[in-house]
């Protein structure tokens, strides 16, 4: 019996080529897109899931709640870790993780390795298996390092380096370390990445800050005893916090406006590290991003399934004779249902095979364009396979089952007499077409608003000169290298000015970012500000607008105790002209005096509001900023890069222009918009394919009517209009429903940006018009053909 069904299905497919093509092409592209998107989401959700103690591991997050403003921070002080381990019950392991790019030397060659400086519990807490050496003794001594297999291969050209001595460049000095163990390479779904582990005590400022409760520099991780709950741990932990941070809490309470719990710690579970912005291993991905992928996948599959349903129902009317006949021969509804579902299943199977092939072909391209890392090896995971198969069955059940059910229930007599018209199911059909075009219009308008926002960000004035300034990451350069570089730069003809800073603007090629937030008391008020260490001529190099006072300058001898602030800081201090006022940023630091105020500029991403800012002079620099004036920026950049690589042999990251760095901050958004745009295009194409096929059917059905109308004197344009009208009405309804939905989604999305474009009404107008035009063109292809046909042909055939 099944054989007979499949035979019929196969012959039907060959006979009805347009429908088979629309269904198979639509389904397979949709399945392919959905597979890629769901695999991406799956990958994002399964980050860090290989840690055996995962459910007991937390990162500590500090929360400062001063009335209207809630700030979270992930850096903890060193004595706190000691206190927590001693005084909080249920803590099994605790470790800081300090990430550095460290130059490592073996023999004559040196390499940069991603190092994490950790406490001795690290390898027991996290599941990074040791393949050579002993996990328990690997980090007992301060001069031990653990290398990954890959790092060992790079350094020794051999994966067994246990016992060998390497040198690490720390604090500008080469220091010997012994390789104590080799760890397996880090799985690619790990948020933590290292090539080298060493003890946290080797962190350059460890000795100066080890007893300092106020120096919070590195993220802290705990592993709880099994069975200890997060809530009880947080409760016990905050008793300790209240004990040691009494002074800070009292300060904060002064202007917190009655908020009791001004400062406390919470635990962030390991499973949230990848997608929670507070985590130190945050990927930069919005938490909703994987969900959006799933939604997009569902929408695309939905559109293809709608095509499938509409076409199957429409086509089953052409086969109504067969259905009626089978019933009169004794077929039960269930058997007919099975038959039609089997046909749908066969079609979907073709589509699945095609889509898998397509996916394998597209995967490298997809990874490259959208910056994802999906490998085909995910299909080794039984859950992925089960999920795919289950999803596929569900789709065939939905797409094939509904038409089959509908067809099986038809009345025999009507079917045999051929009384079934296309009009019979037009309610459902029209509803489904409306849904399809709704989705298409939502995607089109969202895409255009996302595009506008990205444009807005790219052209928004940042408040500094981004097109002429090159930033050079210093990568462990010695102070003498930096001085040499500055002098050599000053000699270059196109260089107008040179300065430096602790933090980059935007995101440089080294990929690092950070901020330094400080709080202190000023006139009995708690003020909180970002702090930035800069070099002389900072404002001049970046073309910051000085509103009053002056920039840091070598001409004055007292600038080491001077600060430059921005407008918002002045506002916070409550003064209009801040030049000359003094304040203390910390009890053990000398007071500083304000020498100038600059106009607010976007030193962080446009996602965030501009914060108050204090610029100081006396901290180490990590970046040099060079302002160049040249007709050939590319050549200048190249020249400076070569110069820098010649001076600092440890240089790793290339210099880059600041406008490029600013763009790099919005990579996620750019990826996101690319995916959205591709999804929108795909959705529109699949919808149109469906509309086209339905139009073919309807035209075939109305052939006689068209013939009669023409004989009676209707014009071609009149007939085209008559035939297209019904479809256009559906698309218009879809546009009307889609517009508010799209507006709402985009409104929510734009709220994620502190600086964003406004939504213009014409966007929806254009999107709607576009949808109508596309639909009209699609339908016209058929209606014009039908209208031009010679009526004699259609009338004599009956």
């Amino acid at each position: 019996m099944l054989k007979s069904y499949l035979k019929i299905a196969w012959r039907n497919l060959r006979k009805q080529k347009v429908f088979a093509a629309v269904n198979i092409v639509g389904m397979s592209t949709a399945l392919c897109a959905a597979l890629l998107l769901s695999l991406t989401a799956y990958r994002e959700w399964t980050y860090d899931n290989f840690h055996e103690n995962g459910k007991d591991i937390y990162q500590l997050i500090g929360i400062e709640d001063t009335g209207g403003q809630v700030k979270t921070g992930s850096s903890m002080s060193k004595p706190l870790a000691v206190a927590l381990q001693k005084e909080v019950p249920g803590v099994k392991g605790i470790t800081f993780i300090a990430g550095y790019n460290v130059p490592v030397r073996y023999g004559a060659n040196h390499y940069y390795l991603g190092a994490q400086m950790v406490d001795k519990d690290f390898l027991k807490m996290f599941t990074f298996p040791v393949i050579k050496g002993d996990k328990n003794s690997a980090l007992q001594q301060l001069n031990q390092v653990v290398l990954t297999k890959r790092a060992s291969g790079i350094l020794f050209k051999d994966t067994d380096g246990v016992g060998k001595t390497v040198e690490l460049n720390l604090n500008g000095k080469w220091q010997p370390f012994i390789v104590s163990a080799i760890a397996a390479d880090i799985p690619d779904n790990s948020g933590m990445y290292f090539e080298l582990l060493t003890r946290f005590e080797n962190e350059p400022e460890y000795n100066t800050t080890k007893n300092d409760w106020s120096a919070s520099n590195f993220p802290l991780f705990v592993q709880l005893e099994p069975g200890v709950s997060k809530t009880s741990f947080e409760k016990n932990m905050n008793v300790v916090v209240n004990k040691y941070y009494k002074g800070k809490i009292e300060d904060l309470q002064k202007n917190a406006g009655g908020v009791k719990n001004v400062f406390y710690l919470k635990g962030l579970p390991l499973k949230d590290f990848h997608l929670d912005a507070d985590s130190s291993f945050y990927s930069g991905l919005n938490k909703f991003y994987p969900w959006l992928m799933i939604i997009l996948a569902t929408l695309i599959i939905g559109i293809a399934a709608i095509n499938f349903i509409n076409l199957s129902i429409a086509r089953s009317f052409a086969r109504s004779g067969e259905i009626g006949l089978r019933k009169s021969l004794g077929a039960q509804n269930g058997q007919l249902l099975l038959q039609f579902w089997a046909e749908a299943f066969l079609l979907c199977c073709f589509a699945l095979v095609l889509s898998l092939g397509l996916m394998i072909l597209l995967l490298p391209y997809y990874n490259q364009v959208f910056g994802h890392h999906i490998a085909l090896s995910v299909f080794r995971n039984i859950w992925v396979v089960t999920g795919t198969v289950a999803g596929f069955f569900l789709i065939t059940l939905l797409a094939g089952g509904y038409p089959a059910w509908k067809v099986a229930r038809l009345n025999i007599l009507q079917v045999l007499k051929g009384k079934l018209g296309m009009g019979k199911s037009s309610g459902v059909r029209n509803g489904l077409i409306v849904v399809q075009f709704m989705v298409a219009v939502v995607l089109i308008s969202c895409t255009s608003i996302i595009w506008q926002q990205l444009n807005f960000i790219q052209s928004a004035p940042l408040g500094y000169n981004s097109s002429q300034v090159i930033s050079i990451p210093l990568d462990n350069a010695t102070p003498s290298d930096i001085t040499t570089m500055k002098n050599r730069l000053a000699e270059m003809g196109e260089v107008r000015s040179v300065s430096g800073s602790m933090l980059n603007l935007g995101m440089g090629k080294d990929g690092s970012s950070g901020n330094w937030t400080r709080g202190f008391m000023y006139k009995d008020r708690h003020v909180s500000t970002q702090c930035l260490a800069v070099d002389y001529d900072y404002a001049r190099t970046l073309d910051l607008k000085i509103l009053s006072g002056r920039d840091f300058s070598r001409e004055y001898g007292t600038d080491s105790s001077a600060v430059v602030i921005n407008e918002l800081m002045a506002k916070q201090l409550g003064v209009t002209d801040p030049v000359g006022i003094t304040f203390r940023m910390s009890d053990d630091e000398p007071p500083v005096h304000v020498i100038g105020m600059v106009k607010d500029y976007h030193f962080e991403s446009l996602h965030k509001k501009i914060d108050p800012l204090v610029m100081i002079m006396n901290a180490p620099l990590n970046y040099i900023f060079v302002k160049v004036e040249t007709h050939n920026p590319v050549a200048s950049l190249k020249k400076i890069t070569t110069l820098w690589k010649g001076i600092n042999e440890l240089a790793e990251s290339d210099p880059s222009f600041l406008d490029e760095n600013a763009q790099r901050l919005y990579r996620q958004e750019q990826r996101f918009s690319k995916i959205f745009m591709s999804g929108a295009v795909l959705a529109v194409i699949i919808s149109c394919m469906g509309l086209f096929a339905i139009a073919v059917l309807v035209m075939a059905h109305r052939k006689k009517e068209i013939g009669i109308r023409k004989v009676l004197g209707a014009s071609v344009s009149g007939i085209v209009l008559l035939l297209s009208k019904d479809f256009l009405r559906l698309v218009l309804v879809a546009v009307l429903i889609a517009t508010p939905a799209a507006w709402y989604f985009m409104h929510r999305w734009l709220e994620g940006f502190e600086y964003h474009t406004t939504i213009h009404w014409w966007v929806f107008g254009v999107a709607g018009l576009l949808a109508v035009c596309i639909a009209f063109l699609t339908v016209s292809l058929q209606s014009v053909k039908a209208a031009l046909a010679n009526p004699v042909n259609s009338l004599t055939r009956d």
Partner: protein
Amino acid sequence: MIQLQKISRHYPVGFGKNYILKDIDLTINEGEFVSIMGPSGSGKSTLLHILGLLEEPSEGQYLFEGERVDKMNEKKRTQLHRGSIGFVFQAYHLIDELTVYENIETPLLYKNIPASERKSRVADVLDRFNMVAKKDLFPNQLSGGQQQLVGIARAIVAEPRVILADEPTGNLHSDQAKVIMQLFKHLNEQDKITIVQVTHSDVNATYGNRVIQIRDGHIQP
């Protein structure tokens, strides 16, 4: 074998009813060859549909081999379709996607007959109708008369007790019609299959042994 008692069929029209059949009393015995005749719209096709359980009567009782079938549920009705009743249609209603052989085999598939027996029964029928050479052709490769032969072959392959034929020769020219009618006569006489046909043609009616005239929903005495 077939007994209709006070069978009526009507459609609602406005506030009243429009009777297509009214108070039909009819008995058809096993082995008869009955022709139902009457002008267009007289209700003869409706009567045949009711006989074939394709349509339910509005009033009255229908006994098939002594069993009430007018209120039968879907499942039992399907059993009758599978086992006892064979249909022949004016428009043949062959499945375009199936070959001659497969079309004839379809009712046997629904009766869950094992493959070997299916094969021999289809082969028998093909042989008997001299269509062995055409068994792998598709319906659109056959002439109308040949298609109707396949239709009849399909109707008898399941060995029904009754064949209901709705203007079986309506789409054929007279030579082909003659062949088909002789086949019916043969089936009736040799195989003892009860045959009920609807026809316009007086010539066709002569092949049967009883004529029922219908006019305006009533059987003419």
